[in-house]
C-alpha cells in the first residue's frame, strides 16, 4: 500500500523504484486565435503503484486536462509525464500503457459488448483463445457474463459503465484513468458503483487515477486526493487528512462544510495564536508562525462545535464565541443551526440527534459555541467560491 500520510506531492515511498505515474513540472496552455487559456499552470505529482488517486476540483480546474495528458490525448506545453520512469511526452495514446474510462463511456455502438471488451487485446495481437478467456473473465468480474452478445445500447447506464470499465481493465494497463465515470448515473447507482469500483481496484491491484468534481465520491474511494483549483494543486493528502487538516480556504470550502472566520491576532505564544474579542468570545488557533496584529483566516467544521446555553463554557473547549440562533433545520439524524455571532459572522453547527429528539436551541436564543483549539484550522489563500470573502469578513 503506497497511500501516503504526507501532504507533499513529492514523497512517493523511497526505494521502491519509480512511481507508476510521475508528473514533473507539467503545464498545458491552449491557444486559440484570440486568447490563450492556461488549463494547467504547474503540476508536480507522483502516483504510487496500486494507488487509488483522485483529482478533485471544480470544473475548469485542470483535472480532466491532466488526465488527458497522461492518456496522451493532449500533449503538455511543458514538463514531463513518466510511466514507470519512462517519459511519455510525444508518445501517441495507442502506444501508452494506460487505458481510459470515458465519462460518456464511448462504447463502440456497432460492436457487441464482448467485441468492445476484446478490442484492445485484438490490437495487441494476442491469440484468439486468450482474448476469449480474458474477455470472459473480465465480464465475470464486472458482473456482465451473460451480456456479452448484447449491443451496448441495449444495456442500462450502469451496465454500460461496467462495459467501459471492463474494456479498459482487460488490457491490464499499468494505470487506469477514469474521467468522471459515475457522473451520468443516478445517486443510488452511483453509490453502489463507488463500492464496486473500489472492490475491483482492490481485486486487480491496478493504479487508478480518478477525476471527479464530487467531493463525497473522492472521499469514499481514494487512497489520496489531489485537490486542484485554477490549474494548480491546492493540497494533496489522504481523505482524512484533507478533511481534518485543510490548508487553504479553497480546500476547507470544497471538502465538506466549513465555518470560516477572519480576525486579528491579539496574542501569540507557544505556537498558538489567539483572537480575543472580549465578551463576544475568544478563538485559539495552532499556528507555526504568527504575530500580534496579523490578519488570519480560521476554519472550524460544523460537527466539532458544541452548542450550550447560559454561562460561557470552560474546560478544554477553550475556543468559545457567543451568538444568536437564526435558523434551525431538522435533518433526521442531526440538526443544523445557523448561529449569528455578535461580531456579525454566521456559523453553521451540526448536532447529532442523541437520546432526546428535542432540539437543544430555538430560534432567537442566545447561545455559546465552543470547540477545542486543535479543531481551529489556520487557512491560507482565496475562498472556494469568490463570494465567501465579503460575507465572512468580521
Amino acid at each position, binding site marked *: 500500500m503506497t497511500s501516503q500520510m504526507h501532504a507533499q506531492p513529492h514523497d512517493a515511498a523511497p526505494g521502491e523504484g519509480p512511481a507508476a505515474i510521475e508528473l514533473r513540472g507539467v503545464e498545458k496552455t491552449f491557444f486559440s486565435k484570440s486568447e490563450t487559456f492556461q488549463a494547467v499552470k504547474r503540476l508536480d505529482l507522483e502516483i504510487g503503484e496500486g494507488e487509488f488517486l483522485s483529482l478533485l476540483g471544480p470544473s475548469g480546474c485542470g483535472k480532466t486536462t491532466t488526465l488527458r495528458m497522461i492518456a496522451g490525448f493532449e500533449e503538455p506545453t511543458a514538463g514531463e509525464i513518466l510511466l514507470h520512469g519512462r517519459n511519455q511526452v510525444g508518445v501517441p495514446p495507442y502506444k501508452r500503457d494506460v487505458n481510459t474510462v470515458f465519462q460518456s463511456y464511448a462504447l*463502440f455502438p456497432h460492436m457487441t459488448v464482448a467485441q468492445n471488451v476484446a478490442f484492445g487485446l485484438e490490437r495487441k495481437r494476442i491469440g484468439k483463445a486468450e482474448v476469449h478467456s480474458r474477455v470472459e473473465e473480465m465480464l465475470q468480474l464486472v458482473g456482465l457474463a451473460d451480456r456479452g452478445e448484447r449491443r451496448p445500447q441495449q444495456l442500462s447506464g450502469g451496465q454500460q459503465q461496467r462495459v467501459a470499465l471492463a474494456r479498459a481493465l482487460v488490457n491490464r494497463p499499468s494505470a487506469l484513468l477514469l474521467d468522471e465515470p459515475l457522473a451520468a448515473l443516478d445517486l443510488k447507482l452511483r453509490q453502489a458503483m463507488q463500492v464496486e469500483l473500489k472492490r475491483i481496484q482492490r481485486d486487480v491491484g491496478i493504479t487508478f487515477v480518478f477525476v471527479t468534481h464530487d467531493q463525497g465520491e473522492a472521499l469514499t474511494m481514494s487512497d489520496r486526493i489531489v485537490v486542484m483549483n485554477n490549474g494548480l494543486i491546492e493540497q494533496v493528502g489522504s481523505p482524512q487528512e484533507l478533511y481534518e487538516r485543510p490548508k487553504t480556504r479553497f480546500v476547507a470550502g470544497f471538502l465538506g462544510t466549513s465555518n470560516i472566520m477572519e480576525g486579528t491576532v491579539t496574542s501569540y505564544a507557544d505556537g498558538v495564536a489567539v483572537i480575543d474579542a472580549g465578551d463576544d468570545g475568544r478563538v485559539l488557533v495552532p499556528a507555526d508562525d504568527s504575530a500580534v496584529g496579523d490578519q488570519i483566516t480560521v476554519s472550524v467544521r460544523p460537527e466539532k462545535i458544541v452548542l450550550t446555553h447560559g454561562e460561557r463554557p470552560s474546560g478544554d473547549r477553550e475556543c468559545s464565541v457567543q451568538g444568536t440562533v437564526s435558523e434551525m433545520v431538522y435533518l433526521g439524524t442531526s440538526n443544523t443551526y445557523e448561529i449569528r455571532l455578535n461580531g456579525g459572522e454566521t456559523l453553521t453547527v451540526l448536532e447529532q440527534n442523541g437520546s432526546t429528539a428535542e432540539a437543544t436551541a430555538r430560534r432567537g436564543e442566545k447561545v455559546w459555541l465552543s470547540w477545542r483549539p486543535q479543531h481551529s484550522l489556520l487557512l491560507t489563500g482565496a475562498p472556494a467560491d469568490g463570494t465567501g470573502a465579503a460575507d465572512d469578513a468580521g
Partner: protein
Amino acid sequence: MSRALPDDDVRISPLRQRLGRLTGYWLALPGGLWLAIFFVIPMVYLLSLSLMTGDFINGFSQTFHVSTYWHTISLYHDQFVRSIIYAIIVTLLTIVLAYPMAYWIAMRGGRHKSTYLLIILLPFFVSFVIRTLQWQFILADNGFVLGTLKHLHLVGSDFHLLATPVAVICGLTYNYLPFMVLPLYVSIERLDPRLMEAANDLYASKLQALLRIVLPLTVPGIFAGVLMTFVPVASDFVNAQLLGGAKTTMIGNVIYTLYLTNNDYPAASALSFTLMGALLIGIFAYARALGTKDVMEAAAL
C-alpha cells in the same frame, strides 16, 4: 397527444380525441396528394404507354405488347451497360474524393464548417448545363489544359479528351460530388469524437481507428451518398451529350432521343422502366450486402 392521462384534469371530447389521432395523417395529406398527382399518376401513365404500340403519326393504342421491352433492351444493350459501368466508376470516384473532404470538414472544420460546405455547394448556384459546358472549355483540344500540355510536348498533338469516356466520367464526377459529400459529412459529423479517442486509447492507430470505427459507423452515410449519386448518374444525359461522343452515349441520351426526337413514346417508356427496375434491384442487393439495417440501427444511437 392522443389520449388524456387518467389523472389529467383536462378532459378532451371524444370527437377531438379522434381528430387528434388523425393529426399525423392530416399533416401528411398535402405531400401525399402532391406525390399522388405528380408522381404516381405519371408513373402509371408511363407504364401503360410502354405497353402501347403504334407511331406518332397514326397514334398509339393500348395492346399490352411486352415485346417493346425485349426489343429496346436488345437494341440499346450497349448504352445500358455503359451507363451502369460509368455510374459505378463515378460513384467510386466520388466516394474516394468526398470521404476525405467530408471527414476533414466534420473533424477539423471548427467554426468554419458551414463556410466549407457552402463552398462545396457553390457550383449549384450556376446552371447545371453551364457548369458542364465549362468542362467542355477546360477539356477542349486546344483549351488551357490540353493546350498547355501540348505546348510543353507532354502529350501528342492529336491527343484529345473530349468525346472520350474520361471526359464524361470527369464531368459526372464533378457534377455529382456534392451529393456524396453532404450525406458523408452528416454521418461523420455526428460521430462522437470520443469514439476515436477510445479506439486510440485501446492501441488502435489513427488508420486502424478510421477503418475499424469511423468507416463502419458511417456506412449509412456512404449508402445514402451512393443512392444520391449512382441513380442520377446512371440516368444522366447532359454530360454524355456535352462532353462525350458517339462512343459514350448513355441510356439517358437514348431515352431523350427516343422521346423527343423520334417520338417513339412506348420505346422510351419501356427503357425508362427497365432502367428503374435495374436500379431498384441493384440498390436492394447492395443494401442487403451491406446489412444496412443493422448498421443504421447502431448509428442511430
